[in-house]
């Protein structure tokens, strides 16, 4: 089982190395097949103009069937963007990282989606329950049962799940 993630990730890596990343996205490190780092930057006019953020991807043995664990890096001087769906610990509430993940998506696709999520933000603010969530959040964002409703993606942390 582990081999399908390895094969798929090696394909993605080869593709990134040969064709490069879309503009605004850069590969920081991909030494193994378990953790990769990217930086994303929102191009053009936006609230985050000129800001660069670091994303961390963690893969398990059943990638791409299962989604990667994606979060912004907040250690060592990195910060997470201030966005209604990004918590201060770097966890992201995005449907494609949860129930709308599909094996068709790739690492680059996720980066692009997050890039557009930032670009379409109207107001820089933290999520409403940021402090409460950050206090008791699990280490791996995949363990959080985010609740996505129609308008605003409002996360419900795992411990509130019955």
């Amino acid at each position, binding site marked *: 089982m582990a081999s399908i993630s390895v094969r798929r990730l090696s*394909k*993605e890596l080869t593709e990134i190395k040969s064709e490069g990343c879309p503009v605004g996205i850069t590969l920081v490190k991909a030494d193994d097949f378990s953790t990769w780092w990217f930086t994303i930057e929102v191009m053009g006019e936006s609230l985050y103009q000129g800001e660069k953020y670091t994303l961390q991807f963690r893969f398990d043995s*059943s990638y791409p*069937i*299962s989604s990667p664990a994606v979060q912004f890096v907040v250690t060592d001087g990195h910060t997470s963007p201030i966005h209604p769906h990004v918590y201060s610990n770097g966890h992201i509430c995005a449907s494609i990282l949860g129930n709308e993940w599909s*094996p*068709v998506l790739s690492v680059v696709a996720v980066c692009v989606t997050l890039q557009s999520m930032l670009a379409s933000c109207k107001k820089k603010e933290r999520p409403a329950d940021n402090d409460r969530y950050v206090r008791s959040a699990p280490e791996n964002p995949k363990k959080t049962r985010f609740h996505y409703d129609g308008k605003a993606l409002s996360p419900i942390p795992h411990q509130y799940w019955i």
Partner: protein
Amino acid sequence: MSHNLDMSLYNYVDVPNSNLICCICRTPFTDPVTTRACAHTFCKDCILRAIEHSAQCPVDRSPLGPGNLAAANPIVRSLVDELVVECVHRAEGCMFTCQRQLLPAHLLDSCTYREVPCPQGKCEETMLFKDSILHVHKEDLEVDSVKIQDAPVAPATDEQTPSHRPASPSSTSTDESHENNSSPHIEVASSSISSSAIHETLDPRVATLTEQNILLRYRVDTLESLLHSFKHELGAVKRALGPWFRVGEGLEAGFASSRDVGRISTELPVGAQPASASTSTSTAGVVSVEGALPPPLEYQPPYAYAYPFPYSNTAPPMPPADSLAPYFPAELEDGAHPLRRQVRTHRASSSMEFMGPHLQPYDPHNPFSPPPHAPLVAPLNLGTTLEGTLHGLRESVVGLAASVDSMGRRHEIALTNETTRMAEEVGGLRAGLHGLRMQIHAIMMDRNAQLTGRDGMGDNMNGQWMPLAGVQPATRPFYPQQPSITKL
């Protein structure tokens, strides 16, 4: 398709068309399947794993279950199977490339870098095929090969087999590990085989055979699928025919005996001759044009089953009329049998119309007259062939037609009688009425005469009643004075 994991590791010589790449594993499809609803194609294993995790199509998230997957279009399958790949032993030196579907055969039979056990079966060692040619045991060597030393040294000192030299250095260099670890594998000096020669002769032949094998396999697959479709059709035909689907004793028997129909049918009762003229050609329930007797075989093709023909095998030929009785037992009519309707064509229905003119001579000439009551219709004779059943059915219809006709006649007769009687009655009534009229006339005449007798007027010599001016007969008593000659 049992090498799925290996297949994903294949190196493709050319960049495959992007349409043939599975979006889950990002390699060309292995055992592709396509979703029924949204027509997306994936490797079978990839999509099954994805569905296990989340039952939706990875491309458009439409609901998807294992039952909604069908084998991909054979064209797609062929396209991926024919992609050219390198041999998996490329790193070891095998430069062979072939279509992906042919690689397993290559690895099994012809790759010189595949691992094989000792060809003599004497030791447990495995080695590369190309080296196994040269793998011999000491005890199998000939006497004069004693001269030959251990493999690394042997070629240099060997004078008898110059042909070995080109081959042996290469083989020995890679074989060192083998030969150092085990009992010395001494090259057979006097053997006339050399590894390169063997490769030259065997490889093309093996490749050809492999190709032919693959082709044959494809043919077998095609034939199997054809067979399957035939079986399916046959099953449908079987179901359609129902009780009449019986494999006959012999096709020839059925067909050949149909020639006898014309003859046998002449044994039918004389009165039924005009009807039988059409019967003889209705081997399949089809009524031909009156007077024409095309060969019975003409009607066989539409019903080309191997049936024992009723006249020859199961039922005796039509005997004289009395034995038509078996066709009219006291049982219920098997009315709307759907099968009957199915097999009965428009031609069968037209037989009814055709039978009309035949019935005219049928009734008076036929010694077998229909019973006064309506004949009961026999049930379908399922014990015989389709033609036999239809023939029995037709006989029942004929009998029914005859009885209908006779009933018509009876009705006519009754009607005639009634009419006559009624006419007579009417005549009688008319006469009576006439008489009454005359009576009244006579009475009125008498009264008139009485009145005119007093008033001095005679009655009209015509006997007509003439009103008298000024007379008020109601005021005078009226008594008939003498009987009138017109009284009846």
